[in-house]
Structure formats: C-alpha cells, structure tokens
C-alpha cells in the first residue's frame, strides 16, 4: 500500500530535517550541561572520590546483606540509601529529596526506631524470661560493654595531625550503646545525642549483630570449661497468661517511676507486647508486627543509609567507632559469661554460663549461637529457651542503659 510508505517517508523526513536544523544550534551547550550534571563529572570534583568510596561501601554492605545474609532486612535498604545519597547531583538529600524527607520525618525525630521497638514488642514472647527471671541479671551484666566502650572512647587522645579530635561525652555515649547489640536502640540514642555519628554507629551496630556467630563463640569457649558448657538446665516452668499480660505493665510502671528517660524505648516495647499478649486486639498486634514494621523498616534503612555521607563517614572517627564498637561487643559478651559463671557457682551448677553471652541481646541470633555452642559439647543439650531469657533481658538492659546515658549526657 503506497500511502503507508509515503507516511513513513514523510515522518522520517521530518525527523531527519529537524536533526539537521537542531545540529546547527546549541546542542553542544546542552550536552555540556548534561555532562556537568553527570555523576562522572561529580566524582571528579573536589572531594568527589569520597562519594565514590562511599558508594563502594554501599555495594559492599549490599553484598554482605544479600550474599552473606547479614541482617538483610535492615542492611539492604541501608546500603541502598547510602548509594543513592552519595550520587552527585542526584539530590536525594537536598530540600526536595525523598531521602531527606524520610530522614527528617522518621530518623532525626526518633519516630522510626520507636515504631520498630513497638513491633519488636509485638513479636517478642517474654515467657522464657518470666519463667526464669533470674536471667535478668545476665541481661544486666552484658551491658558492661556499653560503658567500657564509652570509657574507651573518652580515653582516645585527640591526634590533630590525622584530623582526629577525640570523642566528647555525647559521642562516647552514642558509641558505647553499640555494645547494647540492639540496632534501634543505637539509632535512637545516636539521633538524640550525636546525629552526626548516626551513620557509622548504625553500620557498626547492625554489622556486629550480624557477626555474632563469628564474634561470640571464641569468647564463649575461652572463658568457660567443657564441663560448664555441658551443663543441662532444668525445663522452664509453664507461664500463665496473666503473668504475660502483667509483664509489660510492670515493666512500664517501674520504668516510669525510676527512669523516665528510658520510657520512650521501654514504653513502646511494652505497648507492642501488651497488644500481643492481651489477646483482644489481634488486628493491631498484627499490624504492629507486619504492615507497620515492614514499612518502617524500609524507611528506617533508607533514612539511616542517607547518613552515610562521605564527610561524616570517611574519617578517623569511623575507624574509632568500628574498633570501639567491636570491643563493646566483646566485653559485653565476656561480662555476660563471667556473670553466668558466678550464677553457676551460686546455684550449685544449675546455670550453664554460656547463656550469659545471650545477654547482649542481638535477638534471636545470640540465643541460637548459645544453643549451637552448647550442642557442640553435647548434642542433646537444648539451651535455646534458656538463652531466650537473658536474650530478651538484654534488650531491656540496653534500653535502661540508653535511658541512663540520655539522662546523664543528653
């Protein structure tokens, strides 16, 4: 059909002629404009290489999150946030940028970590802790790492030659809390005490939580004997529903009375847990555990990732934070185990000291690690439920420690 060909020809002519006309004018200028606004050019600007390095770190975190399954739920969004916010001229952190909105609305205000805490409350069964409340002490002992790292941060001398100014008290507190082995608590405290360090602190907190199966076992074996590791514990008593319902209320009441600065964290976990345990608001409990939890996790990850800006991350502070954070973890684990040994002695060998290591929190990974280390000595030794007690106690313990820090430093 001829008229088709004519249409096609006409169309192509139009296109070509417009190309010819346009080529005479300032296409070059437009091209330069595009080039000037490209990431390629941005990376070559002063300091641009830093963004490139941060993007590299973002991809590394992605790799760890996806391929090695290090806390992927938070690491994948966080890594993506880091990558996006370090692309030059992409404007994610500028006035109208989406990551800026997310950070300002939910991270800077502390709202997202608190909603995560509500979700954790709605997901956590405090039964094992109620059945054996003595394990609360293990959750207390393991917080020693927090204060140890705080002290360590203060001891680091300023070395102006390499641009390191030492850490002030607010920074030291934010760093110490990494030893609490609880991501949202770390983010919450850092957002209140030292938002500039939020990026590296969150990275350290989640990284070490993911590394629990690597960091803890050697320490556990170093400080315990084979006999201690083989101790079998008595089956936990059954817990009544009423005890579970009252638990969050008791927690809240005591926190309000003695340490209000910890109530944002403790209050939200108690709220979530009450939604779960009271049994008459299942719709809300499920929303807190699922819909809201998932949405907030995406946004929290992106928002925290957006704080992995080159100027805040690529400096000697970060190295200090990573080292101190690791120390905090190790010392916390050690303190938990040593206290476990004391409890073992005092109870005449009824407590397996390994469960003290779960006191750092890092729920539920630390409890599982305890179980595995125990089973390496004795396949029939099931410590999981016994380790869940100190494990959830550790969450409470680090929230309390956070409250103390916020009250004394904040």
């Amino acid at each position, binding site marked *: 059909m001829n008229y088709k060909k004519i249409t096609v020809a006409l169309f192509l002519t139009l296109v070509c002629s417009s190309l010819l006309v346009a080529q005479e004018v300032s296409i070059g200028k437009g091209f330069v404009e595009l080039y000037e606004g490209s990431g390629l050019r941005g990376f070559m600007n002063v300091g641009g290489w830093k963004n490139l390095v941060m993007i590299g770190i973002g991809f590394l975190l992605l790799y760890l999150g996806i391929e090695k399954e290090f806390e992927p739920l938070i690491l994948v969004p966080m890594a993506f946030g880091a990558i996006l916010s370090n692309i030059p001229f992409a404007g994610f952190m500028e006035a109208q940028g989406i990551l800026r909105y997310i950070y300002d609305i939910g991270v800077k205000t502390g709202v997202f970590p608190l909603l995560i805490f509500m979700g954790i409350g709605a997901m956590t069964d405090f039964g094992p802790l*109620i059945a054996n*409340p*003595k394990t*609360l*002490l293990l*959750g*207390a*002992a393991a*917080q*020693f790492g*927090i*204060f*140890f790292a*705080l*002290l360590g*941060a*203060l*001891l680091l001398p300023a070395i102006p030659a390499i641009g390191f100014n030492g850490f*002030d*008290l607010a920074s*030291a*507190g934010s760093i110490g809390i990494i030893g609490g082995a609880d991501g949202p608590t770390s983010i919450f405290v850092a957002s209140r005490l030292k938002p500039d360090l939020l990026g590296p602190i969150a990275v350290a907190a989640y990284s070490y939580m993911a590394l629990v199966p690597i960091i803890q076992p050697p320490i556990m074996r170093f400080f315990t004997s084979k006999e201690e590791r083989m101790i079998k514990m008595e089956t936990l008593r059954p817990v*009544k*529903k*009423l*005890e579970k*319902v*009252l*638990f969050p209320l*008791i*927690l809240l009441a*005591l926190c309000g009375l*003695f*340490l209000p600065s910890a109530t944002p964290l403790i209050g939200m976990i108690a709220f979530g847990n009450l939604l779960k345990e*009271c*049994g*008459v*608001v*299942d*719709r809300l409990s499920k929303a807190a555990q699922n819909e809201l939890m998932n949405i907030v996790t995406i946004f929290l990850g992106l928002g925290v990732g957006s704080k992995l800006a080159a100027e805040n991350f690529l400096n000697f502070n970060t190295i200090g934070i990573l080292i101190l954070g690791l120390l905090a973890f190790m010392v916390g684990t050690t303190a938990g185990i040593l206290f476990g040994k004391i409890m073992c002695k005092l109870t005449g060998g009824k407590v397996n000291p390994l469960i003290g290591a779960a006191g750092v929190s890092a729920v539920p990974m630390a409890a599982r690690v305890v179980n595995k280390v125990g089973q390496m000595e004795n396949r029939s030794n099931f410590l999981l439920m016994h380790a869940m007690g100190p494990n959830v*106690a550790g969450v*409470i*313990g680090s929230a*309390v*420690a956070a409250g*103390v*820090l916020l009250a*004394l*430093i904040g």
Partner: protein
Amino acid sequence: MFVDGLNIMVLGMGIVFVFLIVIYLSMTLSSTLIQKFHLKYNPEPLHVIKVNTGEKDLVAVISAAVAYSKN
C-alpha cells in the same frame, strides 16, 4: 572527662543492675500473688445483657449483613 566516664560507668552499671533486680523482684512478687490467689486472665465482657463486643463480633455482623444482601 575520663572521670566523668568512670562515674557514668559505675552509675550506669549500678542503675542497670538495680533496675533489673527491681524488675526481678516485682515479677517474682506478681507471680507469687498470681499463684497464691489463683488469679486468672480471663477477659469477659461485663454486660447486663451478654453481647460480645470484640472485633470478631463486628466481622460477624458485617458478614451477616453481607451474606444477607448478596442476592
């Protein structure tokens, strides 16, 4: 500042221990009371006329309404 740190450490670990011990005591007390007085958690609507008010009910009524009107 190092002294500040030491203070915070002592105070902090002290508070953490004291606080968790207080929780421990309160839980033990509450468990004891529950055991002693045979308290139970048994949510039941207090109504002159027994009408369930939970959400299941809402769903039931709405389903009924839906079932009715689907014709």
